[in-house]
């Protein structure tokens, strides 16, 4: 029943879930990408300078001639040792290639996640407090409109604005010649380039989160114990922030894990449209070239981010909700 062992068991259980999920995704990613017709070397058959024997040798080099389960086991064994395989196109290990792009994707999604929650929480609480009043109705309409616009249209629209106005960079992550910039200048340059993609991500994730915050708060505000607290003369502000918000925290923290997933998948798309050097364009390029291990690695890495997001959510939940703590220590 001690606190330390309870949290250890709770974490271990969640970690086991995460490991199982990663395993499942790796199997599916591996098998689906190998089932897809063709492989990286098929295009070379049309090239008169490469002979059939050379092709067979190449395929044997990369072990593409072995049966699929054997390849999976060999690959999975290597992954456990930190080796994600070789990229056909770059002829270098997949790991470092992926990591260089993943950092950029994390920068984008991390910033967007922080911003979108900083907006969704206060706006949702405020909206729930004004439930049904003109301010709440107006906000609901605004989010509904935002919800209807597809991410892609939003991204293209903002790009058009940026091009027309010339106020913001329209793609990439750094300006030409940024290598010569000072450190502070470089940070500012990257931040400047982040404005558009982050804006698209925030705008696309905000409506859903805002609506969930509003609904959770509206429900929490109905709780009888809030009525009781109101009767004791406790201020509205304290009721909202110290009573209703913790009561609404449970669904919202679970939603946080989910929001990491939506932001990540949204980010892959936005990166392609705004030529942000992240996982998105890299994955697209790898899929088109059938660069097998890069595709699987990118999918696996995205899953890992998603799992990590949910893991953080679980931790927060454990910290925020004494009922979960009690439940965990009882087991």
């Amino acid at each position: 029943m001690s606190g330390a062992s309870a949290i250890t068991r709770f974490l271990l259980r969640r970690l086991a879930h995460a490991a199982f999920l990663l395993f499942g995704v790796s199997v599916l990613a591996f098998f689906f990408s190998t089932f897809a017709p063709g492989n990286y070397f098929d295009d070379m058959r049309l090239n008169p300078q490469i002979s059939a024997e050379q092709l067979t040798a190449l395929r044997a080099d990369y072990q593409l001639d072995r049966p699929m389960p054997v390849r999976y086991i060999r690959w999975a064994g290597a992954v456990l040792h930190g080796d994600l395989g070789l990229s056909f196109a770059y002829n270098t290990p997949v790991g470092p290639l992926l990591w260089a792009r993943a950092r950029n994707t994390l920068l984008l999604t991390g910033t967007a996640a922080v911003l979108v929650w900083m907006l969704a929480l206060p706006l949702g609480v405020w909206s729930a407090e004004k439930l049904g009043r003109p301010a709440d109705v107006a906000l609901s309409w605004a989010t509904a409109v935002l919800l209807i616009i597809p991410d892609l249209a939003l991204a293209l629209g903002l790009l058009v604005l940026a091009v027309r106005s010339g106020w913001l960079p329209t793609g990439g992550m750094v300006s030409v010649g940024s290598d010569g910039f000072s450190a502070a200048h470089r940070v500012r340059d990257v931040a400047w380039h982040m404005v558009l993609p982050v804006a698209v991500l925030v705008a696309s994730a905000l409506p859903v989160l805002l609506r969930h915050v509003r609904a959770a708060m509206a429900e929490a505000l109905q709780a009888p114990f809030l009525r009781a607290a109101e009767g004791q003369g406790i201020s509205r502000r304290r009721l909202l922030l110290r009573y209703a918000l913790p009561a609404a925290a449970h669904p919202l923290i679970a939603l946080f894990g989910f929001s990491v997933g939506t932001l990540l998948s949204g980010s892959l798309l936005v990166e392609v449209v705004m030529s942000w050097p992240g996982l998105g364009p890299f994955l697209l390029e790898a899929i088109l070239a059938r660069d097998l291990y890069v595709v699987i690695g990118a999918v696996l890495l995205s899953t890992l981010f998603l799992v990590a997001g949910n893991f953080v959510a679980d931790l927060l939940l454990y910290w925020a909700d004494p009922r979960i703590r009690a439940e965990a220590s009882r087991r």
Partner: protein
Amino acid sequence: MEPVIRVENLVKRLAGRGLGRRVKAFTAVDSVSFSILPRATLALVGESGSGKSTLALCLAGLERVTSGRIWFEGRDLAALAEKELRAVRPRLQLVFQDPASSLNPWWTVGEIVAEPLLVNGRTAKREGHARAALVLEQVGLAAEYLERRAQDLSGGQRQRVAIARALILEPKLLILDEVLSALDCSIQAQIANLLVEIQRAYGLAYLFVTHDLRMAAHLADEIAVMSGGKIVEQGVTQDILRNPRRFETQSLLAASRVEPEAM
């Protein structure tokens, strides 16, 4: 003697609300008048839907009244703004029917009981918790309960916590809204006796809202019978029990199988 609270012609109409169509407005409380003297208990008895709980919420300032006056400490609560009302609330506390839902499930008993004191006054945290321990002891809960959470307590213990939370502000009037009905029979008697003790110790006035005439008879000096939003019969407890004039009173009497001679 000056009454603690005097209610004059209180009316609460619930606005008709519905999607697309107008629903007729419903008068939940219809021209109700009564007063309660210090240290006295008035039982408000009625079937469910008779408007007694709405009336309790109006008195506690949790529902705005449609018309009428609520005199308390020389002021008309019905006319006060929300901010002024908050200053009055410590002296007029409401205890709810279901202690399971009226206590914050995220907090410990100590936090729940000390909260009104910490928020309303300029009490230091340490002193607040000391006072909470004291009040909890008065309602029969030892100091070991301070760290427990409401969800780990029994129904009777929870209701004791709810009563302690109301008492810590040293109110003049306690509105008890069906506080016994969610409890088992044996626990009901315990809490009822506790209420009598506390009334003596604190010199409180009670408004005891219930559907159970037997309990009302046990606790109250006066009984007011409510039906359809109106008080249809009101008088000293003994008189009401011995000589119920109205059909509503007689049926409530029959429902609680009370023997007038035994009173």
